[in-house]
């Protein structure tokens, strides 16, 4: 075996089964006697349900049951819970309207479940669902943010006045007002962060099972099976953890959309118990568009106060954000504690004040999507930085450099709650400028011009907070859960190792990265390390994977458990070699007595632990199997610099990304190849948001981009080779020094792309354009027409 430890670009262990089509996804799971559920969904955004005639559907061939929201209610099930409570400016809690598993009384968005048909086959269930007669009384729909907060707007929920979920703020308003009062210049920018559909490659799926002992099993496409067990068991089905197993096997991408507890999970589990038969549901792609939680959807106004030298004095931000029709599991925290707390960015802006108003609309719920809040913050700041440079005639690189938090200022307390532990923004900036050949851009621009193309270059110097999160901190901010992670290191008798992790891999490569940590720390070849995840019956506990937390939090839990294994191993080794435990050293898989040539391999120690014939049985339990819970001390703060170059066709307005460079500070890297893949994937999604993707509703709340015929996903051919580099400082408060890399690509890239587009259009006097920068938008700017202006925000 070559080097396989921390820092080795070993090939991914899991890819063999994925590439050979031998993965085990939820839809691959079939239980004996399984039935199929088809969900009839609302085809309209907002309506009163006057009645549902289920008789014909129930009589259809192969049908076992038809359930509506009233059946769910009659069985005493709870609604889908929200895991985060935000408080308003005045201290009152946010509005938290009920979120029924199946609609009761009203439907509130296209895709809202209205009834479920359970039948022998998928086809039979679907046929029968067409026989449901639903008597709707249409109500006016609210599709977008400004409609929602307009005077006299229709109400999405009775009792939620003005459709306001919460009206929240952070920062020091007085200090900001004072700074604006003495500012030499104020630069203001209105901007939209476009709504996105996540589109994981694998659609969501769930299989509910119920056995003779009354125990439930749910197989589900989830990023966090323990969280689903907790939420569904405790709040919806009222089933104790001991009688509910949740399995999330191979999962084909999540990007956040598979964090949440969805109605379908509760429906199949509950129905399996009622019908005493397993029940499967798998989304069709069009259902994914209208039922997976969407991402982003902000409208903001940002204002920066500057002194005469161009120093940032104060930032004022007002944001309207869309919650959709109901509160998805973690929705309320995304535009608050994952967004507004990041508004310092990498800058030493002394005073910041942000107001965030979350509103309900008749649209699919919005929740965390790759980056979650942080892309919105970095887009706002990094667009604003470029606009400031433009409006004040400064160089955009020097303006940033001048306002960076200095290298020696860490730990750095921002004015918006976070304390950055480490970072060197100058290093990532300089690294990226060099890797991207920023200095040589002008020559490339001329070459493009000769081909009739407008070339532009843009950058972003971003930061994000991940590795979520210290439980006591998030608890004080409204989280209804802890955010530690759990790992078990089980050294088997012959020295192979199983890692049980509460993190969940759905594309990230944990089976490789985590094995490499074991290889590094215990000297066991990765071929002998098995990483087990995604099953509440096998894993002690876990909070799952999101917010780039698997390595920073889950990996730290592993290191803690490994440390326990080593400590116990030393005591066993001391016994076997008749030495004192203090004199035992552990290195490269060997326990040795300091200063001697006596040593025992890990496998000898584990064998002694499981066959304890010669063993300190009075002092030590047999076995070598340790579990650790790790609660992080702080968030981690990856950051970096992304530089993008675009070419715009002079005739059509079509923009293409032709060069992209990402230099990130992500702390300790375990597998550089996997990091590169993560960054590339994130950048692809960021380029998608900047140039192509857009979830569009019509004014009444019909989803116009309900399929790939209309929703533009980036393709491989839309992307250049992406140059990925790292300039890392170590995280100071976790044992690996790792910060996380899953989201940096999606956070850093959108502003870099738009800044490049604006730069390419330098001769057209354009100050800003909203994402996505479609060919037509760019063309209309080139026709001399500015982008159609947005009216002032109605929330003012």
């Amino acid at each position: 075996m070559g080097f396989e430890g921390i820092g080795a670009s070993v090939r991914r262990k899991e890819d063999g089964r994925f590439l050979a089509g031998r993965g085990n996804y939820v839809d691959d799971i079939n239980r004996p006697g399984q039935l199929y559920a088809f969900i009839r969904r609302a085809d309209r955004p907002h309506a009163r349900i006057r009645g549902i005639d289920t008789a014909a559907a129930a009589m259809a061939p192969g049908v076992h049951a038809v359930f509506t929201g009233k059946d769910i209610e009659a069985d005493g099930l709870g609604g889908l819970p929200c895991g985060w409570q935000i408080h308003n400016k005045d201290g009152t809690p946010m509005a938290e309207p009920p979120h029924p598993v199946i609609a009761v009384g009203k439907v509130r968005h296209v895709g809202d479940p209205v009834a479920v048909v359970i039948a022998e086959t998928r086809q039979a269930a679907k046929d029968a669902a067409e026989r449901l007669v639903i008597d709707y009384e249409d109500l006016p729909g609210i599709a977008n943010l400004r409609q929602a907060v307009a005077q006299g707007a229709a109400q999405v929920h009775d009792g939620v006045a003005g459709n306001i979920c919460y009206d929240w703020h952070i920062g020091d308003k007085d200090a900001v007002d004072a700074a604006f009062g003495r500012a030499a210049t104020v630069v203001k920018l209105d901007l939209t962060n476009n709504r996105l559909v996540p589109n994981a490659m694998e659609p969501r799926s769930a299989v509910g099972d119920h056995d003779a002992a009354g125990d439930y099993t749910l197989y589900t496409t989830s990023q966090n099976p323990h969280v689903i067990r907790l939420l569904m068991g405790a709040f919806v089905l009222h089933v104790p953890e001991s009688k509910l197993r949740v399995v999330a096997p191979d999962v084909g991408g999540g990007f956040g959309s598979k964090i949440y507890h969805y109605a379908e999970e509760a429906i199949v589990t509950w129905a399996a118990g009622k019908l005493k038969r397993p029940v499967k549901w798998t989304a069709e792609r069009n259902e994914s568009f209208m039922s997976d939680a969407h991402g982003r959807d902000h409208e903001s106004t940002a204002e920066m106060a500057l002194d005469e030298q161009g120093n940032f004095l104060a930032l004022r931000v007002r944001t309207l954000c869309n919650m959709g029709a109901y509160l998805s599991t973690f929705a309320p925290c995304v535009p608050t504690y994952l967004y507004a707390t990041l508004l310092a960015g990498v800058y030493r802006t002394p005073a910041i004040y942000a107001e965030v108003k979350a509103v309900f609309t008749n649209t699919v719920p919005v929740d965390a999507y790759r980056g979650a809040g942080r892309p919105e913050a970095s887009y706002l700041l990094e667009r604003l930085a470029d606009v400031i440079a433009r409006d004040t005639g400064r160089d955009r690189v020097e303006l940033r450099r001048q306002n960076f938090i200095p290298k020696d200022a860490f730990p750095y307390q921002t004015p918006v709650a976070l304390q950055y532990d480490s970072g060197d923004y100058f290093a990532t900036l300089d690294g990226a400028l060099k890797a991207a050949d920023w200095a040589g851009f002008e020559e490339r621009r001329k070459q493009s011009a000769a081909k009739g193309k407008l070339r532009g270059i843009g950058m972003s110097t971003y930061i994000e907070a991940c590795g979520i999160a210290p439980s006591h901190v998030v608890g004080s901010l409204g989280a209804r859960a802890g955010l530690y992670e759990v790992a078990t290191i089980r050294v088997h008798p012959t020295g192979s190792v199983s890692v049980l992790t509460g993190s969940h891999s759905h594309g990230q490569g944990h089976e490789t990265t985590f094995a490499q940590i074991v290889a590094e720390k215990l000297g066991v070849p990765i071929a002998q390390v098995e990483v087990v995840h995604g099953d509440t019956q096998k894993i002690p506990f876990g909070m799952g994977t999101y917010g780039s937390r698997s390595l920073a939090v889950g990996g730290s839990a592993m290191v803690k458990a490994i440390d326990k294994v080593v400590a116990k191993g030393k005591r066993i080794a001391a016994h076997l070699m008749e030495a004192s435990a203090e004199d035992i050293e552990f290195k490269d898989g060997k326990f040795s007595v300091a200063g001697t040539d006596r040593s025992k391999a890990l496998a000898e120690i584990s064998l002694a632990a499981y066959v304890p014939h010669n063993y300190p049985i009075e002092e030590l339990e047999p076995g070598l199997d340790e579990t650790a819970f790790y609660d992080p001390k702080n968030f981690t703060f990856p950051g970096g610099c992304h530089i993008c170059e675009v070419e715009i066709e002079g005739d059509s307005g079509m923009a293409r990304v032709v060069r992209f460079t990402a230099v990130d500070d992500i702390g300790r890297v375990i597998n550089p190849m996997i990091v590169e893949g993560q960054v590339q994937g994130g950048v692809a999604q960021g380029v998608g948001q900047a140039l192509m993707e857009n979830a569009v509703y019509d004014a009444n709340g019909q989803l116009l981009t309900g399929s790939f015929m209309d929703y533009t996903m980036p393709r491989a051919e839309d992307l250049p080779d992406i140059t990925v580099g790292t300039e890392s400082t170590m995280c100071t408060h976790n044992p690996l020094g790792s910060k996380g890399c899953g989201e940096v690509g999606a956070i850093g890239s959108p502003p870099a792309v738009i800044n490049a587009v604006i730069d390419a259009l330098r001769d057209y006097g354009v100050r800003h354009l909203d994402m996505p920068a479609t060919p037509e938008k760019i063309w209309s700017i080139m026709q001399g027409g500015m982008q159609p202006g947005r009216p002032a925000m109605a929330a003012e």
Partner: protein
Amino acid sequence: MYEFTYHKPTSIADAVKLLGADADAKALAGGQTFIPVLKQRLNKPSAVIDLAGLGLSGIRAEGNRVVIGAMTTHHAIATSPDIAKAIPGLTTMAGWIGDTQVRHRGTMGGSLANNDPTACYPAAVLALNATIRTDKRSIAADDYFQGMFTTALEPGELITEIEFPLPVEKSAYAKFRNPASRYAMVGVFVAKSSAGVRVAITGAAQNGVFRHKEMEEALGKSWSPDAVAKIKTSPEALNSDIHGSAEYRAHLITVMAKRAVAAAG
């Protein structure tokens, strides 16, 4: 999809008979539009008549014509050396349809029978003055396309071959793809052949493919990108949707026409 009876006849006569016997029967060519439509339950045929067994695929020279069987796939057209030599614009066009999987299943006849206003082939057929041969008759391209999803085909009538007259002196296709679906948002086929100079536009108009007479005239006088550069198209009757307004499509017609003429040389 809904249940239906599946037939795979081995002669054109049997296929026509099956289609004639049942008003709700539908013909299946490559299925790249029809199968998704069935899967979305937007169509409920009583029977599906698969045309794959009729021996309708193949490309052959026939005197001063190239004849393409209705069931010939995009892939076969895109990779045919004969087509590349005789009508390079058609090679380009076929190679830009969908993706590799689609090009191995989708057929020219299926596309023409469907006459999607954003499909590519109608532009080639019209610009090259091709003839649509059916089980009953021959239809000139100018008579064949009759508006969105509408053709001169009678119920139960099957396209068997498409006949392209040679020589084609110049031909090229330029396509501005719908960013999401990759169908033509505006596709322009330019040709100079025995039928004279023809310019056919697909994707842009509400009624599907049309000939751009003003551009034809200009190119007839002078075959160069500059000849069409100043020609504007009225946005009236052009499509407008979330991907592009009628005005933008009108602009793209000029852009794509210029590119097509330049590519044709």
